[in-house]
């Protein structure tokens, strides 16, 4: 959430009531969070990142490492790629968009809001089927989806989450889409799908390997990789926003993310390198 200082409180009327306005303005200034969009040489360097929900478990650690290396801090917000694209198309002042597919960053490019001619690939994701360890469906395998005891399977919404699209296509390839349709529970994004199965409300969940690799999810459950040939590759792309005041820092992060040692390390977070 960001607070904006009102800009029209200094009209003619305000001049006449300077004595009341000045303390009021000072009060309002105190309310503005100092971290939001701080600029100038002395301020800490920060970039605001809109990140696809599958990065919710991976990005904090990557951001820490990047800040350690460069002093630049990442402030991230997570949602489905479509949600984030909608925000950006409607004027969200973020600096960098890390999407979970190509189509949504491409929309930013098409709207002439990106500073490159095409989105930049930074990682490849993997779709997994997750179940809690205490689930009667354990041990999960290729045939678990056919188990008659399956009543609810969480997945991200294919309408606005790339991992939802992947899950939908995988079900279609496995010819299970019609059969399992009544049991599908649609989450807003892949992180909510993970939450649905984590809380036990859904028995199974199509989630990202990134989320399934988080320490907590590894403790409470197990996962099965979905056959990669059943869904289109989850190539994840990024764009730097053209109007960002921190374009150089945003590119510095992307370059760092694409550097061989970091790409090599991505597997620890459930992502495959693109370089």
């Amino acid at each position, binding site marked *: 959430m960001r607070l904006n200082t009102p800009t029209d409180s200094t009209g003619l009327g305000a001049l006449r009531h300077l004595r009341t306005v000045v303390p009021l303005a000072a009060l309002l200034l105190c309310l503005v969070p100092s971290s939001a969009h701080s600029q100038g040489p002395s301020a800490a360097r920060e970039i605001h990142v809109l990140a696809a929900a599958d990065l919710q478990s991976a990005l904090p650690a990557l951001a820490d490492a990047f800040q350690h290396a460069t002093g630049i801090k990442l402030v991230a917000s997570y949602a489905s790629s*479509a949600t984030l694209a909608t925000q950006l*198309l409607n004027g969200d002042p973020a600096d960098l968009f890390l999407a979970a597919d190509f189509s949504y960053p491409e*929309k930013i490019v098409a709207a002439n809001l990106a500073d490159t001619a095409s989105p930049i690939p930074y990682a490849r994701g993997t779709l997994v089927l997750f179940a809690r360890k205490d689930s009667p469906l354990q041990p999960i395998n290729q045939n678990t989806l056919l188990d008659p005891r399956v009543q609810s399977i*969480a997945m991200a919404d294919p*309408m606005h989450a790339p991992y939802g699209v992947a899950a939908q296509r995988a079900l279609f390839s496995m010819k299970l889409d019609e059969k399992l349709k009544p049991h599908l*529970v649609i989450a807003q994004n892949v992180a909510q799908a993970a939450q649905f199965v984590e809380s*036990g409300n*859904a028995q199974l969940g199509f989630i990202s390997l990134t989320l399934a690799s988080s320490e907590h999810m590894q403790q409470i459950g197990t996962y099965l990789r979905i056959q990669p040939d059943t869904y289109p590759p989850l190539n994840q792309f990024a764009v730097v926003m053209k109007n960002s005041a921190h374009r150089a820092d945003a590119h510095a992060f992307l370059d760092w993310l694409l550097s061989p040692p970091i790409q090599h390390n991505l597997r620890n977070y459930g992502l495959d390198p693109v370089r």
Partner: protein
Amino acid sequence: MDTQALGLTLRLALSTTVLLLLLALPLARWIAAGSGPLRAMAQAVVALPLVLPPTVLGFYLLVALGPLTAPGRLIIRLLGHPLAFSFSGLLVGSVLYSLPFAVQPLVSGFRAIDPALLEAAATLGASPLRAFGTITLPLAKPSILTAAVLTFTHTVGEFGVVLMLGGNIPGATRTLSIALYDQVQDFDYTAANRTAATLLAFSLLTLVAIYWRRSERRSLLA
């Protein structure tokens, strides 16, 4: 326009209104009948959904009443499925979330009734239940109507609880507010416009009807 979502929203709002009035009438009657810490506590609990974000309710319904807890397992045994991702789950959420909108108008309505009328009824041998049916309810009719309309419209406008608990299932948990959210996410602004305009017109008309009735009544009394 997602007619299935519209139908579901109206069904949810109607079920919530009926169920909530059945709960709120005796509760409001009890609250209005006296004072004391117990009643203050009840009123505070009833008012909680006004101040709490709907996500608090969504969280408790999803996790505290989920399959990992004893009360959650009891619910699964009773319903055959968890509260989450079901119409009954949304109904429970909506009843709790709209509680103040039903109870508060009823409490003020009941308190406005002259106790002398009820005493007179008792003197004439009417049982408390009969007095409630023949005196309290007819006199509180405007408040009951307000409670019903507010509950109905508030349920139509519900979003946060449904988003956390619903699972976006067409015909079961995809209400109009969720359909609108999806349409915006999907860049389908034409459909979003239709849904938003429907919700806007519906809410405005309902509120106009309420205020109009109120002003009519006031001018009749004057």
